[in-house]
């Protein structure tokens, strides 16, 4: 055997060894009833054709490789952004294990979240007992300051009434009467994780602002000078939120970050386990009602939340994952206008540096074709930046994008000569993307970790920007918003472009164009 105790091989190498290759070949030959390789090849080639693309796009029922996740994931993501808050998902525990692993694998941090562990009997008789026991246990075991309840499909299908259940549980003494238990119904069969984020955040704000489910008086808004900021579901929340705070501080604007999960997804290793860390304090969450305005960095993550806030008399405005010069300009100018504060020289300089960097390298990006997929706002922000750089974002696909997103994307394309041959694809999946990449090839693909299979399949180099990023570490620490963030995105794109030139020119036996100066 190739494996031996003296020198134990990792799986990366081990199964490439001749013994294992032989074993796998034998298995295929003897037991797998393998098809004629020529036939497999023929079908493979056929699946790359425009004819297949047409069939692929005519798909009605089947979703293949979806680029979206479910509502409760977004709810958990939003909930941990509050001080000492334990997300509690009412439903089956398997779902919750997924959210925890999803977030853990992306952020490389523990992700604390509990479920009411509904089983078959609960599905038949209702989940009230699970809710009551669950709240009591989690309150006693994990000592949270708040428990934010969301739901899985299971609880939604049988129609569990969260408001009533929580009330009953409090009456039964699961948690103290005045303990904060906001809630949101977040069924996976509606929307995606960005909808869940929206619902959970709205649920929490509603809880604090509108009288805690009838147990307290509603808050009276007395406007102050503060500005609320909502990041939305964002895989770069650690870097982005810190960048946004830096910008607010530089502008000397008073602010509240709502659902600030930048610390809980980036806890230090110093011997202390932090189940909860940082986050928006409950007091600030309540006081946020008095703010002058609320800015959301992601329109499609906060549609309901912003409407709710606007209903309380605040000015609200939404951006679309602001990446690049113009998008950041607009964000800063909005901030400046609302707060009445000037944009400081320090930020003007950062802007100049980003413009300078773009100019230094634009020749390499200019005219390159890109495909992008991801959440609707991220797609929009990246497209905006690519158009700024003179690149052509030919295919922009968002599984959880809707008609409104499509129209806004097309308007963005129409605003630039580089967007003329570009299309937005709402509600499509990565198997659609595969057809697009084969029939209308591009130079680079921007997407999350799942894109690596598209990269291998279609030969389109993948630039990893999105959520989740499982197979690269620490990207979430660097912002993609603001001028600094634009710089990070620019470098990421350029690195891949240069890597590609090197890869293409690094041909054994030749010695041209594999240059040290690019």
């Amino acid at each position: 055997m190739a494996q031996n105790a003296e020198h134990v091989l990792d799986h990366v190498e081990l199964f490439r060894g001749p013994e294992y290759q032989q074993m796998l070949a034998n298995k295929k030959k003897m037991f797998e009833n393998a098809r004629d390789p020529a036939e497999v090849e023929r079908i493979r080639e056929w699946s790359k054709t425009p004819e297949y693309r047409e069939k692929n796009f005519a798909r009605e029922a089947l979703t293949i490789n979806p680029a979206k996740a479910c509502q409760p994931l977004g709810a958990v993501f939003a909930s941990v952004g509050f001080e000492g808050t334990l997300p509690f998902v009412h439903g089956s525990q398997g779902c919750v294990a997924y959210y925890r692993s999803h977030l853990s694998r992306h952020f490389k941090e523990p992700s604390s979240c509990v479920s009411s562990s509904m089983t078959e009997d609960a599905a038949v008789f209702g989940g009230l007992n699970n809710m009551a026991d669950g709240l009591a246990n989690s309150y006693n075991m994990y000592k949270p300051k708040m428990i934010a309840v969301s739901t899985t499909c299971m609880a939604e299908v049988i129609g569990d009434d969260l408001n009533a259940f929580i009330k009953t549980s409090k009456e039964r003494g699961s948690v103290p009467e005045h303990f904060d238990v906001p809630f949101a119904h977040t069924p996976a069969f509606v929307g995606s994780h960005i909808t869940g984020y929206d619902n959970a955040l709205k649920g929490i704000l509603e809880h604090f602002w509108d009288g805690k489910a009838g147990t307290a008086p509603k808050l009276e808004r007395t406007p102050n000078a503060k500005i609320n900021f909502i990041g939305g579901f964002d895989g770069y929340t650690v870097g982005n939120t810190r960048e946004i705070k830096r910008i607010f501080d530089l502008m000397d604007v008073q602010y509240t970050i709502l659902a600030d999960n930048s610390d809980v997804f980036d806890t230090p290793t110093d011997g202390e386990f932090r189940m909860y860390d940082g986050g928006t304090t409950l007091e600030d969450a309540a006081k946020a009602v008095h703010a002058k305005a609320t800015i959301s960095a992601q329109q499609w993550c906060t549609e309901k939340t912003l409407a709710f806030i606007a209903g309380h008399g605040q000015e609200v405005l939404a951006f679309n994952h602001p990446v690049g010069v113009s998008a950041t300009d607009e964000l800063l100018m909005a901030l400046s206008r609302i707060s009445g504060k000037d944009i400081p020289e320090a930020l003007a300089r950062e802007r100049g540096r980003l413009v300078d960097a773009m100019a230094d390298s634009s020749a390499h990006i200019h005219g390159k074709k890109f495909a992008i997929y991801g959440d609707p706002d991220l797609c929009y922000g990246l497209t905006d930046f690519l158009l700024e750089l003179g690149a052509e974002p030919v295919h922009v696909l968002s599984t959880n994008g809707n008609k409104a997103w499509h129209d806004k994307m097309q308007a963005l394309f129409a605003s630039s000569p580089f967007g003329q041959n570009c299309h937005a694809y709402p509600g499509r999946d990565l198997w659609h993307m595969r057809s697009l990449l084969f029939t209308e090839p591009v130079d680079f693909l921007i997407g999350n970790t799942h894109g690596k299979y598209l990269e291998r399949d279609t030969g389109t180099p993948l630039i990893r920007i999105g959520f989740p990023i499982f197979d690269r570490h620490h990207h979430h620490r660097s912002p993609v918003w603001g001028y600094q963030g634009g710089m990070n995105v620019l470098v990421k794109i350029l690195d891949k472009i240069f890597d590609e030139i090197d890869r293409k020119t690094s041909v054994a036996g030749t010695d041209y164009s594999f240059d040290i100066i690019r």
Partner: protein
Amino acid sequence: MSSLSARILDVFNEPGCAKNADKSEADRKKGCTKQPKPGSAAGGCAFDGAKIALQPFTDVAHLVHGPIACEGNSWDNRGSASSGASIWRTGFTTDMNETDIVFGGEKRLYKAIREILEKYNPAAIFVYQTCIPAMIGDDIHAVCKAASQKFGKPVIPVNSPGFVGSKNLGNKLAGQALLDHVIGTEEPDHTTPCDINLIGEYNLSGELWQVKPLFDELGIRILSCISGDGKYREVASSHRARAAMLVCSKSMINVARKMQERYGIPFFEGSFYGIQDSSNALRNLARVLVERGAPADLIGRTEAVIAREEARAWAEIGSYRPRLAGKRALLITGGVKSWSVPAALQEAGLELVGTSVKKSTDEDKERIKQRMGQDVHMIDDMAPRDMYKMLKGAKADIMLSGGKSQFVALKAAMPWLDINQERSHAYMGYLGIVKLVEEIDKALYNPMWEQLRRPAPWDDTARDGHPMALARTDGQAAETPALLEPSRRAKRVCLCNTVDRGTIEDAIRFHGLTSVEAVREHTDAYGGCCRRRIQDILRAMSVSEPPAMRQAAE
């Protein structure tokens, strides 16, 4: 040092150079390049010149004798392409240390040569002298001679320490080293009546290969290219060529002239930059070869190839002319490119507002005048600050130059294209010019430039809330370049629903709107966070122009 100074004098005394021939005896002794001015930013030294001239010889180990400074900074910095050997890219240096400088570095150099031969056994070793060993008196000639004899391999001294002068002098000293030690030391396997030398061609980005298929088609053999994609044996036997073409007149004219003297190889100057120049070069080559005994039908075949290639290239470039016509270009480069590139630009419909002649000979300048007319702005020596001023004054739409000027152009928000050695595209020959035009087109139309030229948007609005930019554009509407209008109109006013300024202005004008509410009714504008901006537009428009539609309705 006496032999080195004699050699420098010899190099300076260049009858092939018209400029030099015009000088008085005393001036000639002073040399042909300006001595670097202390305190001002200067270009490369003689060592650098020698190194870059010879480095493209690909099967040669280039050994730099000196402290780490010289090779450490110049290792593998040449974008030449090699079709085979790669040893030219390996950085070899004696990396002299303090002890070597006290006790002399010759032994170390000798050992270094031996180690290269033992490890790599290249076709030859070129040993470059640098300032420090030259100052302490290391005799690289003697070391190279001894090593050649001992190991039976060519070990060629290139005596061009940095302090002797400019980069251009270094180019020539490198050429001199080839003449003294390499050319004529070997014989080719066979010769043909169509063997040529290309002198001063460096195969940057492989551009020689763009032209070579034409040579192959015509049956013209490049016996030796000095030095792009060059092999030691080829240059050593290059004295058997029938004719030579001098590509970069500045760097290697002494090589061409002396080969003519010694071996009777006629040479002419030519360029493959631009369509007409490529055709002229091919024509001249055919003519000279036929004069020297090549079959007479070569001329006819050459004309056929020229006609075909020109037609193809013109057709390609024609598609760009509408986009490039009337655009003004500023060219900062040297030597042959100062007149050959303008020709190419003119073919693409561009207008030349200035070309640098710092490194150009009188003949080059004459050619520029011929092509561009008498009034073309010839810039002798341009300090970065002046260059900046000129660009900032927007007297040009694009600058073409070497990499060092890039950042000046960028700071002045000027589109820029690299046409010197660090470029990554091949611009030679008929196809190259198409590529150049394509790159100019890309550079000119990159959305970056608009971003670069625009101030930060918050500078548009004056402190009192009055929109400065609006007032300005309306007040000076006649002066607003038509180019800016689309970008001004495309500016998003309503961020939430993506409504641009143009849409809102049109609606105001068309319906004669006066309030934000009315604008909301007639457009998608939300009127929330953009309320103030819409008010600004309303105010500006009511001041500047009467509502045309209302008047018309009345």
